[in-house]
């Protein structure tokens, strides 16, 4: 599995996880979707779907981003040390 992850291009991985983020954004922002999820009493894990709609959106986002972190960790893309700062050049 680790070899598979390391074998992918950075671009394909970013696109995959950005797509997950985009889907969660879509469910939160696209009126036809959130209005379709409104007012539904059908239980999911004992809780009405209308409530679970938002909880599932959060869970997919959180797990998706966590997955992204794990993948970046396996690929060694998170390593960073303490800064060696340059002079303060910000907009001056």
């Amino acid at each position, binding site marked *: 599995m680790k070899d598979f992850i390391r074998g992918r291009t950075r671009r394909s991985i970013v696109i995959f996880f*950005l797509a997950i*983020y985009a889907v*969660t*954004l879509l469910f*939160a*922002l*696209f*009126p036809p979707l*959130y*209005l379709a999820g*409104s*007012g*539904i*009493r059908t*239980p999911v894990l*004992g*809780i*009405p779907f*209308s*409530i679970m709609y*938002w*909880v599932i*959106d*959060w*869970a997919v*986002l*959180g797990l998706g*981003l*966590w997955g*992204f*972190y794990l993948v*970046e960790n396996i690929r060694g893309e*998170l*390593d*960073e*040390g*303490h*800064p*060696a*700062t*340059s*002079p*303060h*050049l*910000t*907009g*001056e």
Partner: protein
Amino acid sequence: MLVVLGMLAVFYAIVIGILYATQQRTRPSFDEYSVGGRSYGPWYVAMSYVNSWWPGSTFIAFFGLAAGAGVFGLYGLAYSTLGVATMYFMATRAWRWGARYDLRSQGDLLGLRFNSRPVKVVASVIGIVSLFPWVVLGMQAFGEIFRYASGDRWPVTACLLVGLAVIVVRQYWTVRMGMRGLIMTDMFQGLVAYVFSAGLCLVLLTGVAGGPISFAALSRVSESVLRVPGDGGHYGPLYLFSLIFTGVIGSLCWPTSFQRIYTAAGVRAVKAGTIRTILLSGGFYTLLMLVGIAATAMPAVAANPQAAWFTIMSSYGGTWLLGLGITIVFAASMGHVDGSVQVCGLQIANDLVNSGRRQLSDAQLMRVAKSSMIGYMVLAGIVAYLTFNLTRLQLLAQVSYQGIVQLAVPLFLGVFWRGGNARGAVAGMVSGFAVAMVLTLIYPDDIAGLGSLTGGILGIAVNLLVFLVVSAVTGTPGEERARVQEMFEVARNPVRAGAQSAPVAQPLGASLLREQLDG
């Protein structure tokens, strides 16, 4: 009354004790004072973000929304978690630029990216001005807390004065210690305000405490509680979109939130901190909203949803649980006011007073930051006192939210895109801010004729259009394009301990920039 006040006193004493025990004995540099020396791990980053994001009013206004309107309250879950997720995608570039160029504030980043002091100043002023109503409301929340704690026996003025005195003493340490003091206490305050409250909500929902609140009760709530605005009622279909979109793009526009990137020890700490923030925020807020929705069946809650948190605590556990509930709100309020005052003091010193023509030493920067924090706090305290009974102040907070999101255009485009220029950024921010302010004053809630869009959304549209048009018309010189290209190249490489920063430390055009701004 004594039990509740005693609980508040114990909590407060622990906070002050932590500050005393963790204070730095040596004189800190301004980098340590402003961003904690960029040395904090993911848990500190996460807890600090959560503290600055969820004020005490979460337990009053947002909880009241769930207890009064039901599933609508969960929009806060969507925008808060989707918003902080942008920190993950921005982390590498923002942190590496911060470390390489010694950036300390959001204004610093924008000033550097667009090679312009006006961009830095405008962005910083929008941030400082937009935070002000929230600090005032935060201080007034302390007055409300003492009103509840005294069982309505103290006069309103006394409650506010005691509340102000409490926060002033706390702020003494924020002024003295800067970011370090904030982060150290955020951990404890956050544990009480969010982790402990989440545990409390979970206990209530399991039903072990008896009473009307439980997971099972959620399946029995009324039909109207399960509907979001736009699905019936007087709001149009775009109202929820407007609220969530504004929240998502606005989350990193708040200086208090953005500052967390620069306190982190590295890109890994920012990203791990973001994951923890999403889990902490989402877990806490979901449980809180579930309790609120389940409580819609309680007549006392339905009668006054804004006081629902205190009503539930009192009815389930009498004075002791009420005391705990008030302490939780107290902890959340304190964390939010602290973060706001600290970052405003920093920005006034670093972004507004310090300049190429008037370069301040570390000691001078700290003096200005400290005195700015005191001035900002005193002004907020006076306004809080004078407007304690004015409901319209809430409108200012709404306006400020629609205003702060105008930073999103240069911030997101500046970090993720190499185009645009300083004139476009300034023109966009100023026009977007003005449109948002005017429209929100006229239509405080929504614009019915536009499907319930809010003024802030229209402001962003104007902002983006102006940014792109002005940038295209005025153009970007080749030298500036090369400087931006160089910045993006810098962000491709990790910043490692002891690494030689040259040549990226002196980005192309930096000297030009100094000459230009120094006249």
